């Protein structure tokens, strides 16, 4: 059956190693495959590798590759292709190099066996390369695409040759891309799509109109406020789920004064955990949920949502909404009349991000925390955060490895450029015990012990109010009633699970 779908952005390239962005990786997962892949529940399952075991005597993993797999151009798949793809993906021109930061060596053992050696024990390594897609060495080299394109185009920018279930039959960047099933796919096709057409539609209202007028079968995402409208119509359905992304506020822990305050200019009140707790207590998550998110969000207590490995059940409570207590805490901390500060937010990155910040600013103001809100597009946002240009900021984090370790490494560990730790810990929250625990977590094989370490980290950071976790970002997809599809928590849309009835 023909199938048409739309999303807000077009994958900017067809090269799986050139840009590490969700639209690109999501789209290319229908065409290219990695050694492992994620199932409907995000679990890791065999793909081009049939099995993997830890190396003996050294750190790393051995992958046994699937035999009889062919690329879409007919050439056979073997370990050389994996080796080539590794080299390509870890080259300087690649945008996905960081996945291979722990890798010290890759060895081709035979045509269908390959070993990845890592610098330290790395139980999560197979998880971390689920989006590492394999190219055909011969094809890439013959077409001068041995390296990803960085500042000029190459053959792989517009053309594909994967082992996956779909191939590109035509592509007009920014306009439309047509996929057709690959007859020689090694796996059994469960979908019934004969031709899939993808169109980017940037304007949410237009996208919704396209769905309702029947021109497309599926769109992701749709605005929360339109859910009721779609659900109320015959022949349409809404798929609601939760992304793994937790939205939070961060603080400038290490700043010695506020940058945007009109009253407190000589010190940083947010250095005081009481003030941070007061901020957390000022937020009325119930109203945010009801009004802004139409009851579609789950409040968050920690940096990963429940269900992610390493989630700390023991610390599942978040500070309650209590403006009086917040005021008291502020008074206790020496700010009975509150103070003003700058709050930085994006306006095009997360669902309702700007509205959220405005609502939060208004709630903060109710307890005396007068936020000077400044919102902007994400294109200017990261550089500002990198330059420490904030008092408080909004951040969303999705654990790439679907494990609690990921945010601990990026958001909680003290900044350490050399070891590439705490690289997104903009406010440089720093707790020696957390820093100590991270390596333990990373190397611990025993799940119970590992969880204990993580519980301790969560406990510490909750006590410190290192961040104010707010909620898990909802995932809202809409489709025609006759479409069966699977919504995966990473917001990736897999054509191979689509059935058109």
């Amino acid at each position, binding site marked *: 059956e023909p199938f048409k779908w739309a999303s807000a952005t077009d994958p900017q390239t067809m090269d799986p190693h050139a840009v590490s962005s969700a639209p690109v990786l999501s789209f290319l997962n229908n065409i290219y495959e990695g050694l492992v892949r994620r199932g409907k529940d995000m679990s890791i399952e065999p793909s081009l590798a049939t099995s993997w075991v830890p190396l003996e005597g050294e750190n790393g993993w051995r992958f046994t590759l699937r035999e009889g797999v062919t690329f879409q151009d007919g050439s056979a798949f073997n370990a050389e292709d994996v080796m080539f793809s590794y080299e390509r993906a870890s080259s300087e021109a690649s945008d996905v190099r960081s996945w291979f930061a722990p890798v010290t060596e890759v060895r081709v053992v035979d045509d269908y066996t390959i070993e990845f050696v890592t610098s330290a024990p790395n139980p999560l390594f197979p998880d971390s390369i689920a989006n590492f897609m394999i190219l055909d060495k011969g094809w890439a080299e013959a077409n001068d695409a041995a390296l990803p394109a960085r500042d000029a185009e190459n053959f792989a920018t517009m053309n594909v040759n994967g082992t996956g279930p779909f191939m590109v039959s035509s592509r007009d960047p920014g306009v439309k891309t047509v996929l057709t099933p690959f007859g020689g796919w090694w796996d059994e096709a469960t979908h019934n799509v004969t031709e899939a057409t993808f169109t980017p539609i940037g304007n949410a*209202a237009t996208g919704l109109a396209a769905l309702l007028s029947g021109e497309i079968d599926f769109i992701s995402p749709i*605005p929360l406020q339109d859910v009721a409208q779609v659900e109320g119509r015959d022949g349409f359905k809404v798929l609601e789920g939760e992304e793994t992304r937790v939205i939070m506020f961060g603080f400038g822990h290490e700043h010695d004064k506020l940058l945007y305050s009109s009253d407190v200019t000589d010190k940083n009140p947010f250095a005081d955990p009481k003030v941070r707790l007061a901020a957390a207590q000022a937020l009325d998550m119930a109203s945010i949920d009801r*009004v*802004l998110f139409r009851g579609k969000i789950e409040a968050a207590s920690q940096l990963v949502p429940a269900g992610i490995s390493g989630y700390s059940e023991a610390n599942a409570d978040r500070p309650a909404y209590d403006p009086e207590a917040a005021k008291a805490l502020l008074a206790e901390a020496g700010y009975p009349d509150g103070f003003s500060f700058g709050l930085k937010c994006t306006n095009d990155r997360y669902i309702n991000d700007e509205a959220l910040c405005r*609502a939060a600013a208004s709630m903060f103001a109710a307890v005396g925390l007068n936020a000077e*809100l400044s919102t*902007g597009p994400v294109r200017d946002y990261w550089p500002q955060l990198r330059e420490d240009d904030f008092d408080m900021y909004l951040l969303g984090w999705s654990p790439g490895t679907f494990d609690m370790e990921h945010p601990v490494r990026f958001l909680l560990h003290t900044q350490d450029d050399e070891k590439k730790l705490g690289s997104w810990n903009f406010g440089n929250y720093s707790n020696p015990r957390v820093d100590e625990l991270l390596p333990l977590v990373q190397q611990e094989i025993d799940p119970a012990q590992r969880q204990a370490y993580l519980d301790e980290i969560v406990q510490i950071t909750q006590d410190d109010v290192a961040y104010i976790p707010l909620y898990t970002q909802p995932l809202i997809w809409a489709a025609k009633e006759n479409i069966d599809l699977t919504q995966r928590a990473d917001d990736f849309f897999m054509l191979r699970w689509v059935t058109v009835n």
Partner: protein
Amino acid sequence: MIAFLKRSEGLWLFVRSPAAIVAAVVAVLIIFGAAFAPLLSPVNPYDLSSFSLFDGLIPPLWQEGGNAKFLLGTDDQGRDMISSILYGARLSLIIGLAAMVIATVLGVGLGLAAGYYGGRFDAFVMRIADVQLALPAILTALLIDGIARGVLPADMQGDLRIAVLTIAIALSLWVNFARTARASTFVQMNKEYVQAAIMMGQRPARVMFVHILPNILGPLLVIMTVDLASAILLEATLSFLGIGLPPDSPSLGTLIQIGMQFLFSGEWWILWIPTLFLVALVVSINILGDFLRDVFNPRLR
């Protein structure tokens, strides 16, 4: 004396034109409401502590679920719509008026001088005008926005947003004034009163501003009204493209842009009330502009 006569002439036409009367009443009401927004509106929508998300999405009074506290309902932040609109109209008018004034001063100044001196200077000004025309309003605004973003420190951007928008809009409007002023000046230059002034040895500035300017005000006034209307609309469009004012200090355009999200979700008032308000304002300004055109061009009556 003549002013009085002219006025009474205008007044006479005015009384005969119901459209102009209605437009004037609407425009005056809106401008009055905007000017006295702080006194008239129930709450200050820029004061974050004056509203609460808890009151979000309340429909207008006459609809089910309405609340007497919020006559026209609230938006998704719990802001009272009336207050938002009055304050929004205020910002829109301030930006529109300021842009128009800047464009007028710049355009009329350059146009007058180009018409007066002619020759190279005229050619130069007209080429600059060409460049400006080759960069349509939206592009100009995007460009200025771009520079401001790059040049100004991040914390000033919020405050300077209005200035940036105003300048961007003004820059895209001045050519109109310059061309009209220049063309009218050319006509006036051949009039004998100008020749008389030049012959007497009066300073160019005096000839331009004391003698010529009052004589070309008519068409300029018409452009001013039309451009005021387009400035207000342009601001709305820029907000739609994401380079307008931030939502926490919304203009009418920003309010409409915010309202667009609720086009189909049932909360119609968040979009349509500000839109109606904007349309009423722009239409009435345009009608007044048409009316002025008639007054200044008796031949078209």
